């Protein structure tokens, strides 16, 4: 294996791609911003001083992907056909997962664009939240998969580790939602495909159950609205959840129907609160 950005004399050069065949190129990259739980809560409520953090970070990531060639010296300018930047708030690990996807039909790969989108989206998240939390860290920026071109398909899961980790350090994959397990009160470990949904106060009495486990595959969409629909598909009595007054919390923070969920989340539905 050689480094294509170095010529025979070991000098940096831009690879001539004129004769390469155009193929569909795709790349997916991820990263995370770890922060204090209170910062994450503020972010999910939209309570940060600079305004809508995720919308701004998303635009920043998309813009950055388009300008990758201006930042990375030997990168070609590409006419991307698709760029998406998605965020998942992870209250269990106090972080925001950032995922970028880039696609084009062309002669060079788009992994640098996806990685740049993730990096700049993470930096923008930092900028938007730093007024309340300067200790945030940007972690695990990495390529997850890439398709098309001479090297074909590459997936992180099947690729060899690029660095050796110390033995006492948990592998990064441990924080991935897909490998999270929920421990339920009975002591049995439920699988990652389950979603625990709790009902509190009057709703617990009305449904005659404190909680229910949903399989991830039952969800029509990966958000709170999808959880409600999956429950209603099981039993029409859960239509009561569509009442405007019913509140919802995801991993202990209040959220709305549109809030995205990940495997292993703790979801709770409850009536309007009446403490004090």
């Amino acid at each position, binding site marked *: 294996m050689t480094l294509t950005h170095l010529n025979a004399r070991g000098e940096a050069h831009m690879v001539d791609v004129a004769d390469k065949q155009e193929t569909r190129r795709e790349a997916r990259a991820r990263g995370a911003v770890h922060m204090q*739980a*209170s910062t994450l*809560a*503020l972010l999910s409520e939209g*309570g940060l001083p600079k305004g809508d953090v995720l919308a701004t970070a998303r635009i920043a990531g998309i813009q950055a992907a388009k300008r990758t060639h201006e930042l990375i010296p030997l990168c070609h300018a590409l006419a991307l056909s698709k760029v998406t930047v998605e965020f998942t708030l992870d209250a269990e690990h106090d972080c925001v997962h950032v995922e970028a996807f880039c696609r084009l039909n062309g002669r060079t790969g788009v992994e640098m664009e996806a990685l740049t989108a993730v990096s700049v989206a993470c930096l923008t998240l930092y900028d938007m939240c730093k007024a*309340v939390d300067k200790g945030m860290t940007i972690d695990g920026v990495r390529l997850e998969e890439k398709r098309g071109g001479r090297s074909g398909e590459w997936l992180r899961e099947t690729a060899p580790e690029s660095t050796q980790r110390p033995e006492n350090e948990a592998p990064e994959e441990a924080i991935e939602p897909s490998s999270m397990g929920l421990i339920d009160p009975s002591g049995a470990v439920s699988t990652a495909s389950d979603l625990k949904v*709790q009902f*509190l*106060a*009057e709703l617990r009495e009305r449904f005659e159950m404190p909680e229910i486990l949903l399989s991830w595959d039952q969800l029509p969409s990966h958000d709170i609205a999808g959880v409600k629909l999956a429950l209603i598909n099981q039993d029409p009595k859960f239509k009561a959840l569509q009442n405007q*007054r019913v509140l919802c*919390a995801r991993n*202990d*923070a*209040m959220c709305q129907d549109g809030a995205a969920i990940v495997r292993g989340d703790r979801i*709770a539905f*409850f*009536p*309007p*609160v*009446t*403490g*004090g």
Partner: protein
Amino acid sequence: MRIAINVHDARFDAEVEQQRLTAGRSDVGAVVSFTGRVRDFNERPDVTALTLEHFPGMTEKALHEIAREAGERWALQGVTIIHRIGRLEPGDAIVLVMTASAHRRAAFEACDFIMDYLKTRAPFWKKEHTDHGSYWVSERQSDREAADRWEHS
């Protein structure tokens, strides 16, 4: 800012809490304290007791978040929030909110703010018991309006 959050079924003593909040500090110029108590009349006229339920884990986080937000809005030196759970009888204290600041205005307003947010954002639910049965207490529009006014201030 010193934040103390407690959710438990035991009684509390406001005087003890005030000493705890101000211990070792001579820069606190004002302490404002609010105590909420169980009434013997509410949605029905003959309330004999109530049971307070909460959502362990989320409750503490929600209260901490409310205290932290108060600390961002006003120059506070300390906040104590105690909320009781379980069965309570008329005359029992349910909730204590105590704020400490250099000057009274911040302490007054922050205490007011914390109660308004607690009533609309912290996951507590009251079930009132009467001689003729029990019922879950409904939310009050006035509580929501009280909390809403801070959104625009």
